[in-house]
């Protein structure tokens, strides 16, 4: 009784609301009140305009200049930087390294991670599941810089774990300066990156798998469907959304690689581990060729924007509202 009495005034208020504030979606006139609302988004818009959008637009302009930042000379040279780009073999090998990065990361951090997450989630003891997920995640919590430095030492020919371990199991002949030679350096960096990142995507897939109703698995098990088939017929289709997202995130990330390459090789030996990001850095900040660096930046912009638009397009098809 008391409860209903207490709740009555509240009901009264909500019922009276239309009378007090008849919020009809009136013709969209710009009133002082509506303009005042802009104050809420003003800080974000100003910060983004000045520090994100303006530099982006400037970059396009800069890419048409021959520009030495220290002497201050600037000269308009049109598309010449882009012509140089097309003729630059290291630009192409950098782009190729980014693609290689994307492909290997897709294999390990997307498809490998789904399988691993499914295996972990099939374990019956909750403590083991949580423990494994947490352990595998630790390399992602330590930064790429720390992980990169760590692997720099692991690959190091004199004190490195890898060569000593090969020696210990009788494969000493395979020991080599992993980061010091062109044939292995890029792969060595990519392997480090898989080590650092697989736990993160495994964790995300594990979360997605947990959302799948367990009845599906139980029903399948009762029907005598084996674990492998359950993976392909239940798990894989039902984490499709997460898979799509991870594919996009992984590819986009692969074209922005910078940190681990810089820490482990700075693009060497003989530019064999240059990626677009480090090649941009080297041209802009080591060689002072800012116009050329801006042209490389434009290429990164076009690639990452294209990937983002693909994601947007996929999202639109799935949901009407963005």
């Amino acid at each position, binding site marked *: 009784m008391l409860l209903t009495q207490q709740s009555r005034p509240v009901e009264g208020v909500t019922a009276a609301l239309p009378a007090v504030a008849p919020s009809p979606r009136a013709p969209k006139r710009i009133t002082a009140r509506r303009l005042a609302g802009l104050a809420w*988004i003003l800080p974000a818009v100003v910060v983004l305009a000045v520090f994100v959008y303006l530099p982006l637009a400037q970059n396009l302009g800069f890419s048409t200049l021959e520009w030495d930042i220290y002497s201050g000379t600037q000269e308009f040279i049109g598309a010449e930087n882009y012509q140089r780009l097309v003729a630059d073999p290291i630009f192409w090998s950098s782009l190729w390294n980014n693609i290689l990065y994307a492909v290997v990361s897709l294999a390990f951090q997307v498809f490998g991670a789904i399988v691993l997450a499914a295996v972990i989630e099939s374990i019956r003891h909750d403590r083991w599941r949580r423990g494994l997920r947490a352990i595998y995640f630790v390399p992602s919590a330590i930064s790429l810089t720390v992980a990169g430095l760590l692997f720099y030492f692991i690959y190091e020919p004199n004190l490195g774990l890898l060569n000593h371990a090969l020696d210990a199991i009788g494969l000493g002949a395979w020991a080599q300066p992993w980061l010091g030679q062109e044939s292995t350096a890029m792969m060595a960096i990519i392997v480090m990156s898989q080590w650092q990142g697989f736990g993160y995507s495994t964790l995300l897939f594990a979360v997605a798998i947990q959302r799948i109703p367990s009845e599906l698995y139980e029903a399948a098990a009762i029907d005598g469907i084996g674990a492998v088939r359950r993976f392909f017929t239940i798990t894989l289709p039902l984490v499709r959304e997460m898979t799509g997202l991870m594919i996009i995130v992984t590819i986009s990330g692969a074209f922005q690689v910078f*940190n681990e390459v*810089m820490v482990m090789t700075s693009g060497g030996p003989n530019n064999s581990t240059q990626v677009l990001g480090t090649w941009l850095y080297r041209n802009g900040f080591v060689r002072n060729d800012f116009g050329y660096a801006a042209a490389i930046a434009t290429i990164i912009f076009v690639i990452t924007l294209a990937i983002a638009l693909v994601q947007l397009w996929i999202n639109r098809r799935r949901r009407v509202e963005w």
Partner: protein
Amino acid sequence: MVTRLTFAGVIARLFMWTFLLCLVVVVVYPLTWMVLNGFKTNAELFGNPFALPAQWGWENYANAWNRGVSNYLTTSILVTVTSTIATVFISAWAAYGLTRVDIPFSRTWSTVILGGLMLAPTVALVPLVKMFQGMGLYNTFWALLILYTAFRIPFTTFLIRAYMIDLPREVDEAAEVDGASRWTAFWRIILPMCQPIIISVVILHILFAWNEYLFAMVFTSGTDVQTLPVGLTSLMSKHGTDYPVVFAGMVIAALPVVILFFACQRYFVKGLADGIGK
């Protein structure tokens, strides 16, 4: 769920556990090696990489600390804390404006703010350097604070907005009837209701700011303004032969985030899932 123990089943399970435990070794062993190396002498490091240190040399940590790591750590903490506060507040305001306030051209503003999600920081690097040099902010703490905030606003706003948009309309109306100003409604009602997503975005931002390398490397050079990731690489190049000190520095840099992860694992996992799941 009871599964019959068949021979093939046992083999499969054995194989699975062998694989999982091998993977644990692959992850844990290098990390253990890193921590142990922080206690060794240089001679031990070059001698046998598998051996334990003969004596636990805490002085490596003291050395790392005195050779700049204390400065890097201070800067990292300062940049992480301030940029987290700035990013979360500016983003929460923007999300509130976009979802719960009637503003002109609301959809356009959404596109402007969330469109920033599509842009890679590398792309703006060259003009930003010129801009910050012109403003006298190059090689200052402010450069990192501004950049870490600006480039994370789209992502953070995106997450908070997705959460705010689902809060019931009646909340705002009730607040208005009670005579609360928009400002009060935001601080007292909407923001507290968003607590779960705020925790997630705070964790994601800390992880980003603590580990960021590109901006930190390009925009800072002095020991007093470098963050840990860049500081570690300069520690490496300055004291290149004294590797145990570098290892000690790496441990100091990694520890806070690892502790944060294990201390609030549940929020952490939820945060990461929010970060990508939406």
